[in-house]
């Protein structure tokens, strides 16, 4: 077996050195009747070529985003990732290292985490960011728990514009930890009155902008209303590229900002792994979940970096920890920070502008179609339209013709009266030809 260096001779010599005559003597603590006496009924070892054939066949059964006009978003976005990113994250020293518990031989990881934290704090307009969460949805769950710890209250209010998977993660976590959640109805037109639902028991309000339907939300009045009642505003985003063009949640008064960072540096990967971004104000640092990297010096006075404030964490505090989190999204974090370094402020703004321009053009073209209504007034790169008939069937029909038209809202909000709503993302990868193909196909199908 190509991954196992020991030879048969090595094995018998080593057993002799240990002082046993059979490998199973080392497994003697396993109850005799539980020790398997034959190989399990699964395929036997294979060479590289054969593995490539098997997995290649499975891969070939999927329609890839790069080979069609592709407008699917709603929480994960198709963007172009520079070749440099994937090359660098595959360097052995990054790929095969562990959580940097031994900082003297992990400064590579620690320095990029410090840079990542600084980038995320700047993007979100917050004081501090952690070294990443699993993804945006689990980060949102952690943010709600954090708000409960800070306010010593336990009711969260979720906007009807929050991605329903995110809302469901929060509800699951809350149900299991005896916390209350109020989820507002799906809010297609950003008309909900969140402020009216905030009361003295409210720990936090969770608002997504751009929301799941693509609409930009005004966070400032909600932040003010939260603060007047002693609650916190948790601002969520699923499209981080929007922050290149839109006022940061921090400037609008958010107390905790959580987002999905997949769009920068990371591929679609059928939903994971992604990278959760998490930022807050200085006064809440000690209530934060997740790894934090901080600056210090070594014995010679040279600047270096270490994991810090670990007294919040499970390996020190056990059942009194702020979170059970151990792993972050290391390599996805690296991909994010490399791509962001390549972009810089100038590149990020340019990228965001192209995304917005493409979405504006598509919205204008769609608005001209009979039986189509664009619902968003203000948006970044994603819009929702009402179509004639069932949007799910429409998407299936277009997929059959090689066009990925978007996400039917009913897939995310089943049985909520949104059967005729289609969520359409438009990024820098979409060409004029892609848009023309989508518009023509929609026109023909309705």
């Amino acid at each position, binding site marked *: 077996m190509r991954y196992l260096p*020991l030879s048969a001779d090595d094995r018998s010599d080593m057993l002799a050195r240990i002082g046993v005559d059979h490998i199973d003597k080392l497994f003697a603590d396993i109850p005799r009747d539980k020790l398997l006496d034959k190989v399990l009924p699964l395929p036997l070892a294979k060479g590289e070529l054969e593995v490539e054939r098997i997995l290649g066949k499975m891969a070939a059964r999927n329609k890839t985003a790069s*080979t069609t006009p592709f407008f699917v978003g709603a929480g994960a976005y198709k963007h172009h990732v520079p070749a440099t990113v994937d090359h660098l994250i595959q360097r052995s020293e990054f790929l095969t290292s562990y959580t940097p518990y031994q900082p003297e031989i992990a400064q590579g990881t620690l320095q990029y985490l410090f840079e990542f934290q600084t980038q995320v704090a700047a993007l979100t307009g917050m004081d501090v960011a952690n070294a990443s969460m699993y993804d945006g949805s689990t980060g949102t769950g952690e943010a709600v728990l954090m708000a409960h710890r800070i306010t010593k209250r336990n009711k969260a209010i979720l906007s009807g514009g929050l991605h329903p998977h995110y809302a469901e993660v929060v509800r699951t976590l809350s149900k299991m930890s005896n916390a209350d959640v109020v989820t507002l109805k799906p809010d297609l037109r950003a008309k909900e009155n969140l402020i009216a639902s905030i009361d003295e028991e409210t720990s936090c309000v969770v608002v997504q902008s751009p929301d799941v339907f693509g609409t930009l939300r005004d966070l400032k009045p909600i932040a003010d209303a939260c603060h007047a009642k002693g609650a916190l505003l948790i601002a969520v985003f699923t499209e981080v590229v929007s922050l290149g063009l839109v006022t940061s949640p921090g400037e609008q008064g958010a107390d905790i900002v959580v987002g999905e960072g997949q769009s920068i540096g990371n591929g679609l990967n059928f939903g994971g792994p992604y990278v959760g971004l998490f930022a807050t104000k200085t006064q809440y640092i000690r209530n934060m979940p997740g790894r934090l990297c901080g600056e210090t010096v070594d014995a010679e006075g040279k600047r270096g970096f270490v994991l810090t404030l670990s007294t919040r964490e499970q390996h020190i505090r056990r059942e009194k920890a702020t979170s059970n989190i151990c*792993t972050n999204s290391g390599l996805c974090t690296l991909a994010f920070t490399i791509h962001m370094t390549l972009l810089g402020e100038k590149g990020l703004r340019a990228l965001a502008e192209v995304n*917005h321009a493409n979405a504006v053009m598509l919205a204008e073209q769609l608005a001209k179609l009979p039986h189509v209504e664009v619902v968003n007034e203000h948006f970044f790169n994603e819009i929702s339209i009402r179509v004639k008939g069932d949007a799910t069937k429409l998407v299936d029909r277009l997929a059959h013709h090689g066009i990925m038209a978007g996400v039917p809202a009913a897939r995310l909000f089943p049985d909520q009266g949104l059967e005729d709503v289609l969520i359409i993302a438009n990024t820098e990868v979409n060409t004029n030809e892609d848009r023309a193909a989508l518009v023509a196909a929609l026109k023909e199908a309705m």
Partner: protein
Amino acid sequence: MLNRQGRPTAPGSDSTVIHKTFTGNRALQQIEPLIFEIGSMDQTGVDIDAPAPHHKKLGAFERKAPIGLPGLSEPETMRHYVRLSQKNYGIDSGLFPLGSCTMKHNPRLNEKMARLPGFSDVHPLQPQSTVQGALELIDTLAHWLVTLTGMDAVAMSPKAGAHGELCGLMAIKAAIIARGEEATRKVVLVPDSAHGTNPATAALIHFDVRSVPVREDGTVDPQVVAELAGPDTAAIMLTNPNTCGLFEKDVVAIADAVHKAGGYFYADGANFNAIVGKARPGDLGVDAMHINLHKTFSTPHGGGGPGSGPVVLSERLAPFAPVPFIRKTDAGLQLVEDEAEAKKHGAHPFGRMTAFHGQMGMYVRALSYMLSHGADGMKQASEDAVLNANYVRACLADLMSLPFGNKPCMHEVLFDDTWLKDTGVSTLDFAKAMIDEGYHPMTMYFPLVVHGAMLIEPTESESRASLDLFIATLRDLAIAAKRGDTDRFTGAPYHAPMRRLDETRAARSPVLKWLPPQPILEAAE
């Protein structure tokens, strides 16, 4: 001395004095500033065409203030991260005996497979008819996991080990709620030797943690469990093999005791690598167990993630598995994504762990590893992992102290610091001296049940020659420590990119991001 071209090659002096360099660099070890110190707001490493003319639809939300993100050109970016990488130690650099973390070889075939566009370039919300191959991959991996563990079902979506623990405990809580016992069954038994994530997870969803002391031999006593378990007991969380590197030999009796009290048996599968193909958790009475694909099944640790923590479930817990899950239909594989749809098929999901469907990129890598090894190869891998750990034990037992006696261990061997008593060298010092010798240290000060723990897990990826050199190195260090050669330890590391870092200072006044240098005010005259 001249070479064939007639040029001198020998140094002009025999001096061994190490001179300070002008740059502060030391050949391949280069000082690398932060991107904020070398980048600029006008620089970019990405060429993007200007957008077509358009009327902005941003309303009042257009960003006015600068963000503060410096850019670098492509060659500068390349150099920055390559230099950073050279300050890191990975499995590919050398032996990485980090106990309980299973730092085994990460096959590059896995990376190649995960990058097939059919897996990497598909969206989680595409029509299901266009991703049947992706669903097939998840379903196939699920079959391998269920077969290797002898369990009934698997919840695939948890994002990491601790997330899997959370998923497993939530399934247990849902089952308890379904039994109408949530008001009374609130206690989770956790042995003192458990990973910190176990009690933290239990507390996160409001279970009360009750500690189970570990007996003299490093394992859990079923008598003690039977005494501690009762009508208030929701579950026990037991790591097996445990963090002392020992198989819980009374695991069946422990399972029976918990089941008899009406509770569930959660197994922490972090150490599954020791027993793949040798024993099945399902045969040992386990109700739920997470599997770290990034440990046992070779997906890369990536400097701290991403992980993946599918949870296998017993028949009793399977109905409560979260959405999404895959079911086979005549029309192909169906991904069931919401509760209403799940209920149509007789399931009672407790909720959802994450957006979308889990860590697809990690699933591909894990299945690539499984297909490569096969059922036979994985059994061999477990045997080699256990063999290597025992070889290290046998070769060091005369110099270092084994808290539970010199007897067979599983895939990791635990030493304590009794043997360092009165040497002036601590476990931390010993670990830092290992760095100078070119090794990543073992896990230190964990588990908490022994003093100054040193937990060594060589994994099956090490050759005999590699182990022999490692053993010889530790023997040399151990003898030096006992001889009183303390400087070699207390000041270590001397040869790493950095000397020992001041962690206390970092925590006392946290600096968690780069701040622009403050202008230095001239002192008034």
